[in-house]
């Protein structure tokens, strides 16, 4: 096999990478097999634990790109590289919080549609305060906000609505009314970024409630139907609007 010459990972951060590109990592990540030699020179040598995120795969000396997108890097905590790609179809990943729609009740287990290739299963005991006698009141067609506890390509995904300490912390059945719609996964990640301008600007408009699922689904509820629809339209459109266009649109709305 002809070995391709890769390029240094640091040089490509923030640039478009295509599948098949090989990224070389700095030398101190390549020491292995014989034992870890402690570098007394210290300096900026990180702990050696590099996180290889979505869109990248380990291959020999470096990382192989498997999705096209922008390469991102996070220096803190040992360093992390990942590819910021755009897609609409969700693949269940363990630990992700998603919105699911109940499609069937099969005995003790609910089947939820999360937008993946298979329906996820959710046991009735996975709610806060649920016991065999005290079952949660879940009907077909309800919306549920939960996280994945098992999600790999070999097994059916499983969800729970409690976290590791047994508390629901916001997960569970999402209430009545409101509006559910689907956007691309990249927009969800943009909205969930720590200081998202879109969310901050929207929060100035009217009181509303928002639930974002990592599977591309967003649920919005505001006081009146018209306000709900306005928020829905802004969220759907803001993916393709620039910041100025968005501000203009919001200014028009708050003027009305």
């Amino acid at each position, binding site marked *: 096999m002809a070995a391709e010459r890769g390029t240094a990972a640091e040089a490509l951060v923030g640039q478009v990478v295509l599948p098949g590109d090989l990224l070389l990592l700095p030398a101190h990540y390549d020491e292995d097999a014989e034992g870890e030699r402690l570098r007394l020179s210290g300096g900026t040598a990180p702990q050696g634990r590099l996180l290889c995120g979505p869109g990248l795969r380990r291959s020999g000396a470096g990382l192989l790109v498997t999705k096209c997108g922008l390469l991102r890097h996070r220096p803190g905590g040992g360093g*992390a590289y990942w590819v910021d790609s755009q897609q609409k179809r969700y693949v269940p990943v363990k630990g992700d919080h998603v919105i699911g729609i109940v499609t069937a009740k099969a005995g003790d287990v609910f089947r939820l549609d999360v937008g993946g290739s298979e329906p996820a299963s959710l046991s009735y005991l996975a709610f806060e305060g649920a016991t065999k006698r005290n079952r949660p009141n879940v009907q077909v067609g309800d919306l549920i906000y939960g996280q994945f506890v098992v999600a790999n390509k070999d097994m059916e995904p499983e969800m729970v609505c409690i976290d590791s300490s047994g508390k629901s912390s916001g997960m569970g059945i999402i209430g009545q009314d409101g509006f559910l719609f689907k956007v691309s996964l990249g927009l969800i990640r943009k909205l*969930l970024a720590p200081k998202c301008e879109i969310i901050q600007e929207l929060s100035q408009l009217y009181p509303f409630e928002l639930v974002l699922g990592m599977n591309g689904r967003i649920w919005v509820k*505001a006081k009146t139907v018209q306000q709900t629809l306005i928020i829905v339209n802004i969220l759907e459109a803001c993916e393709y609007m620039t910041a100025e266009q968005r501000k203009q649109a919001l200014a028009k709305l708050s003027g009305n």
Partner: protein
Amino acid sequence: SCIIEERSFLRCEDLVYGRMSFKGFNPEIEKLMIQMNSKCKEEKIEEDDKMEADVSDEEMARRYETLVGTIGKKFLRKRDQRVLKNDDEDEDDEVEEGNSNPRPSKRAKKMFLKPQD
């Protein structure tokens, strides 16, 4: 060297919690928002604010030292307990677990007897 493969964006980027409420629409979720988002930033500070214990650490250590011995005695065999009784002054007539060796048998262990053909 360790390169960990991760398929979730949650570990790479610093994403906030997905459930939000604004301008007091849902007060419980607003409380949750503050709690969740401050958890990420102030994890270290939370660990320092431990509740003051009623019993100090030293007392706990001393108590556990003697506790281990007391509970350990419960599970000793009869023979060893008799030995211990002679050493100790207080006599605990505790019934030990399972051991129903008749007194006259002097065997410490039950040996495996080969079947006699």
